[in-house]
């Protein structure tokens, strides 16, 4: 409750601090045992197809987006064992949470408890999602888009598979489409225009974390239980994420959309992620691109260039149809 200590909660609720501690432990375990698999799961084919349409609206027509992935840091009190592992680049003890969200800012995949010293891409490579995301995304239909012509007036098309939006700390693969780092994109260029569309979609994952930490403010201050009982701290964070999903599932979205409404143009064409430098430095072994298979991001870029050449502008133009939105 707002990150208060057990003593404060016991005063507020008129029960003993021991009872508060017991309730928190039991609630955490029970929530994970009975609610996790209900509220945190990858969407099935029908749900994902519906979500893709919503993502398409948010990004002015970019097809195939299943979700957006990112990591956030949860401060903890320094654990008794292996405390150096949990220090982030600022020297503060943290655990990292990797979350894949859908268009309603629900967590559809969670990986909680990674140490703060790991970068986002390193966490993704070690996570369970890295093993299952390729076969999962391949079950969805690809979307053909015209990306140019062969010189004889015949359009050439390329297929856009289902993919996940990420920030620039992640590798660019057919299944992962990262936004450009704000230092590596020139304002006004086609890259910036694509970045603007992708950032409008990816902002939802940042909004989801902001909503989570605004609702459950225990996540904004160091988790004291982590120093002695790190597994419980991890379970607690996971249970809180489940409750976040539960609130969205029961319709508690009033105000969230007003607060975090992402508009094209206002979302910014620059992706600012302060963790990127560290992540890039720590994950040098991560392949930057998969040139043999062709990155989805390159296909998106080619399509946007084609729109720019044929229509003359790319802003406020539907990505697939080329019509004004």
């Amino acid at each position, binding site marked *: 409750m707002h990150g208060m200590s057990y003593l404060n909660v*016991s*005063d*507020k*609720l*008129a*029960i003993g601090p021991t009872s508060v501690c*017991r*309730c928190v*432990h*039991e*609630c955490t*375990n*029970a*929530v*994970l*045992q*009975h*609610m*996790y*698999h209900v509220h945190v*799961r990858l969407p099935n084919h029908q749900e994902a197809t519906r979500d893709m349409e919503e993502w398409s609206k948010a990004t002015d027509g970019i097809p195939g987006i299943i979700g957006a992935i990112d990591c956030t840091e949860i401060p903890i009190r320094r654990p008794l*064992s*292996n405390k*150096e*592992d949990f220090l982030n680049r600022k020297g503060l003890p943290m655990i990292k949470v990797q979350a894949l969200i859908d268009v309603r800012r629900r967590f559809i995949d969670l990986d909680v*408890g*990674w*140490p703060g010293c*790991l970068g986002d891409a390193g966490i993704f490579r*070690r996570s369970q999602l890295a093993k299952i995301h390729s076969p999962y995304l391949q079950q969805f239909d690809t979307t053909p888009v015209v990306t140019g012509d062969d010189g004889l007036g015949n359009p050439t098309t390329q297929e856009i598979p289902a993919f996940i939006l990420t920030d620039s700390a992640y590798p660019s693969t057919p299944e992962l489409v990262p936004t450009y780092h704000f230092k590596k994109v020139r304002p006004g260029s086609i890259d910036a225009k694509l970045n603007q569309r992708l950032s409008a979609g990816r902002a939802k994952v940042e909004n989801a974390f902001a*909503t989570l930490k*605004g*609702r459950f403010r225990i996540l904004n201050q160091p988790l004291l239980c982590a120093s002695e*009982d*790190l*597994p*419980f701290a*991890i*379970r607690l964070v*996971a249970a809180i994420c489940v*409750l976040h999903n*539960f*609130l969205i599932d*029961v*319709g*508690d979205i*009033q*105000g969230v959309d007003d607060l975090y409404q992402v508009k094209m143009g206002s979302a910014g064409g620059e992706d600012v992620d302060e963790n990127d430098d560290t992540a890039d430095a720590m994950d040098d072994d991560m392949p930057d691109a998969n040139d043999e298979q062709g990155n989805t991001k390159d296909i998106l870029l080619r399509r946007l260039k084609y729109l720019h050449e044929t229509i003359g502008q790319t802003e406020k133009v539907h990505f697939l149809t080329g019509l004004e939105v």
Partner: protein
Amino acid sequence: MFLDSNRRRALFVAYVFLLLATLRIQKQMEQARVARLRRRQSRMLIASFVCAIVSTGLTCPVTPRSQWTLLRSPHWINGVRDGTLYTPLEFYKQFRMTRDGFLMLYRILSMVCSHGYRLTGRTTHHQTRHQLSGCHSARDSYHGIALTCNAWDELPECFR
């Protein structure tokens, strides 16, 4: 130093007299103190009796402000639940959720909490901690963290 027997006897009698007089005075002072304490106690007894009669006879109003000073008062949570403490806008600013969402969360957690003890058992935390404590010894290649997943053995398979 070489007094005669009469003088010595007289000195002894005087010493005994002084001793008895001192004891007498001390006893009188003690009796006076006890009497004073008894009088004070009886006055306090009467006062507390009167207060008890007054407090039981009259209903002393407890203002909302004074309830905040009481330790372990359910005033706050009752006010939050029945909606008397915050307006909807204040409620949203305070909790970042609507009152309906809060009540749904309150209900589901109450349900979980009331049944949680039976469902989860008490020893799971210690088992988990024990499992992890052995696993966290290896620092290289993040084995400790990889084995964090082993701490979730009592959780559903989708979480492992």
